[in-house]
Structures are given as C-alpha cells and as structure tokens.
C-alpha cells in the first residue's frame, strides 16, 4: 500500500511538473514580443546615441529620432550593431542597455531578398576583356522580378549598366574593362523589386582583372561609417589611396577627404534620398598591388547576439520577424529571444 501511494505521488509529480513550469513561462512569448517591438519602436537614450561614437546608450532602442513612421530605424544605430565597424557596441553593452536581466536576444538585419552573382565567362575582345555575370534575385528560393543597376569599379574606371531580371529572377550582365588596366575590380549590383521600389538588395563580387585573384575585403583598410562620415583606417604605411566613391541604386559620386593623417582618412558622405543602401568604395595601391575595398552603409547584413541554434533542445526560443525601413529602403529584421544565455 505504501509503495502504491509513493509511486502514485511520484507519478503525479512527474506529470504535473512540466505543466507547472509551462504556467511559469506562460507569459514569456507576450513579454518577448513586447520587448522586440520596444527595441524597434523606441529611440533609446540618448535619442541620438547612434551618431555619438563614444556614447554607450543607457537604454536600447533602434528607431530613428523624430520619425512619424513606425519601424523606421536609424542608419547609425543599425551600423553600430555590426562588429566589423570600429564604432560598434559589443553584445554585453547592448544587453545591459536593454536592461532585462533574464532574457538574451539576437538581432539579425538583412535585405528582403538575396542576390547571387556568378562569373560565367571572360574573354578578350579587341582592346578590352569582356566579363559575363549571371545574376539571380530570389526570396527564400522564390524568383523575383527586379530592375538592376550594376557598377564595375577599378581604380578610376567606373562602368554603369542597367538591366532587369526575367520572371525567373535571372539575368546576364556583360561588362567590358580596358586591357590597359589591371588590378582588383569590384562588381556592385543594386536590385530593386519591380513591384515596390523600396524593396532593394545588394550584391558584391570582387575579381582580378589582368591580375591574380583579389585578396579578401579588409586586407588593406578597415572601413567604418558613422554619422555620414567614412573612416578609413589604413593597415600599412605604404598605402596610397587614390579615390573614394559612394554608390546607390541611382547615383554615384566621388567623395572629398575631410581629414587625413598617416593612418586614417575621413570622407564626408552625402545624404542621398535614394531608397537604396549606399556602398562606399575605396581604391588605391599598396606598393605594386592595387586594391578596391568597400563598405555598405547601413552596414548590413548583420547578426549580433548569442547563437540560439546551439541552444539545448526543448529550450524556449521566441522568434519575431519585422519589416523595417532604413533610409527609405525595406529590410527584414529577425529578433530571437530566450532565457539567459551562458555567453552573456
């Protein structure tokens, strides 16, 4: 009888425990959803913490100051989430600024659709080398009809080509570069969905023109943007910068140096109204090696926070997706929320 009573108590406890735990976490989803909205709808403190490089916000919010549109994010607050930027904030500072001690979070910001670029062929035709690229626009595998504006940059040479993807989301872009040039060339492709001009995406492809394969982006300089100023930290004393340019879907301009010393050059970036990300391209030489390096502004795609894919099976993770506006262009923001991570 005693054994029976004990086993009944143990069995009942085992069965009830998960339900009691479930009740304790019942409001987590609502709370996390509120936190995710709060993050994207408030400016944080101070309101302009994005532009102030030395400021760590005392409360976290990514919304643009004085905006009337919900889910419009500040270009600099977003850029400071990217750890490749010298002004970035690390996760522990962001977590402290959010001020919720029992929750960890991950923020991912990316374009609404993806562009893939593939070099199909290259051949010499007369005085130039002709490159053929296959460009595909897809949203999670679904083809998308887009208008494309492609730029090829090599030293002072810039070639602009407009085209559009067919209904299967694919097109071919052919570009010729004079054989008199040599060095690292960069193909920049801006894509705008035909159904909505605010849906834009960006693709970059570096290749060697009459030279060996290019070194990875960031080999010669570290490019960071903040408050419409480009900071170029030169990694070698022998580097000579020849040109800085900004590109958007519709425009491209050369930038004027604002300040310069042995290791750093700063450029003012114009405030363009184009619904497009900007890409700042810096060309130059280091000894006999020419380079073409770049940084997007806002500096996305980005991901910051603990990797929830390594979480213990069965642990609760809440995922909230939003569509946000940054400089009139639309981006997908994915926030993931969970219990306190060990990595904090």
């Amino acid at each position, binding site marked *: 009888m005693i054994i029976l009573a004990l086993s009944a108590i143990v069995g*009942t406890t085992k069965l009830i425990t998960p339900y009691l735990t479930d009740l304790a976490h019942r409001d987590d989803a609502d709370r996390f959803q509120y936190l995710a909205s709060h993050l994207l709808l408030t400016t944080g403190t101070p309101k302009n913490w994005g532009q102030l490089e030395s400021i760590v916000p005392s409360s976290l919010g990514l919304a643009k100051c004085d905006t009337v549109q919900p889910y419009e994010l500040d270009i600099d607050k977003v850029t400071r989430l990217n750890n490749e930027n010298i002004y970035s904030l690390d996760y522990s500072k962001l977590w402290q600024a959010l001020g919720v001690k029992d929750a960890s979070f991950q923020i991912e910001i990316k374009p609404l659709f993806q562009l893939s670029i593939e070099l199909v062929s290259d051949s010499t035709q007369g005085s130039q080398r002709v490159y053929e690229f296959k460009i595909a626009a897809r*949203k999670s595998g679904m083809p998308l009809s887009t208008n494309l504006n492609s730029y090829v940059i090599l030293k002072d040479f810039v070639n602009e080509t407009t085209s559009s993807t067919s209904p299967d989301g694919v097109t071919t872009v052919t570009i010729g570069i004079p054989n008199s040039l040599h060095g690292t060339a960069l193909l920049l492709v801006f894509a705008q969905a035909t159904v909505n001009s605010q849906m834009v995406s960006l693709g970059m492809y570096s290749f060697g023109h009459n030279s060996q394969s290019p070194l990875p982006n960031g080999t010669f300089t570290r490019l960071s943007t903040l408050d419409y100023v480009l900071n170029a930290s030169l990694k070698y004393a022998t580097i000579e910068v020849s040109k800085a340019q900004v590109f958007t879907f519709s425009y491209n301009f050369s930038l004027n140096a604002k300040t310069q010393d042995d290791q750093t050059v700063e450029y003012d970036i114009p405030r363009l109204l184009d619904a497009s990300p900007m890409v700042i391209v810096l060309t130059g030489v280091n000894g006999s090696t020419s380079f073409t390096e770049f940084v997007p502004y806002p500096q996305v795609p980005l991901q910051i926070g603990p990797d929830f894919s390594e979480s213990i099976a069965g642990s609760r993770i809440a995922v*909230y997706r939003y569509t946000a*506006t940054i400089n009139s262009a639309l981006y997908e923001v994915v926030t993931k929320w969970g219990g306190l991570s060990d990595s904090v």
Partner: protein
Amino acid sequence: MFDRRGQIRIIESFLAIAVVFSAVLVSVTFPSAPDLSKQKSLASIATQALIKLDTNGTLGSLILKQLWTDIKTALEVLLPVGVSFNLTIYDGTGHVVNSEVIQNSNLLGQEAVSVQYVCSTRSQTIHFFVVRLQMAWMG
C-alpha cells in the same frame, strides 16, 4: 480465512491502481487553455506587412491600378516563408474590389488570423479601401 483476506487486499490494490491511472489519464487529456502567442505574432507580422506595403501610398496605388499580381508578389517578399495568406480588398460600401484571388495557398483547415487595414489613394479623388489579410502558418 487468511486466503480470503489476501484476495480482498489484492483486489483492493488493483482497484487503487485503476483509480490512480484513471485519474492520471483524465488529467493528461484535460484540455489546457489555448496558447495564442503564435496567433498574436502572426497578426503583428500581417499588420507590419500592410503598413510597409502602404508606405508612400503604394498599396492604394496598386489597388487603383488593379495590379493584383503585384500585390501578391509584394506580400510574398514581405511575409516570412511558411505563411499562407489570402488578401481581400473592399471598397467604402463593403463590396469586394479585387477581381482575382490574391493568395499564395489555400487557408482551408488552418488556424488563421485576420487583420484589417484601411488605406487610401493619393490621387486627386481620394478612394478608401478596407484590406483584410488572413494568414496562417503552413502545415
């Protein structure tokens, strides 16, 4: 005498076991309150998508030009993968405006949420539309 007592104890034990297990079965099958967090999240996504689609009056303009396929494509880009949707547009008098079905897959048999949004055109003559977006997680 002892044998009969023993038999009664055994029967009593079996009865007790049966009572405990039936209690357990009842508690397991007892319906718990529904979890509405997924539905709330979906409703938030739907509202967001419509707000962003209507930036600068784009949605009203697409409706006025009767570009139903463009509206469907724009929603497919804005909404996450794995979501079924059906969009119905009504005019000020409550009549359905869209002459084609705007949906990516059938919502039948799925637990759907419905969100309503009012938009207008930015033309000289202003038209108002009520947009109803129904969405459900696939599978």
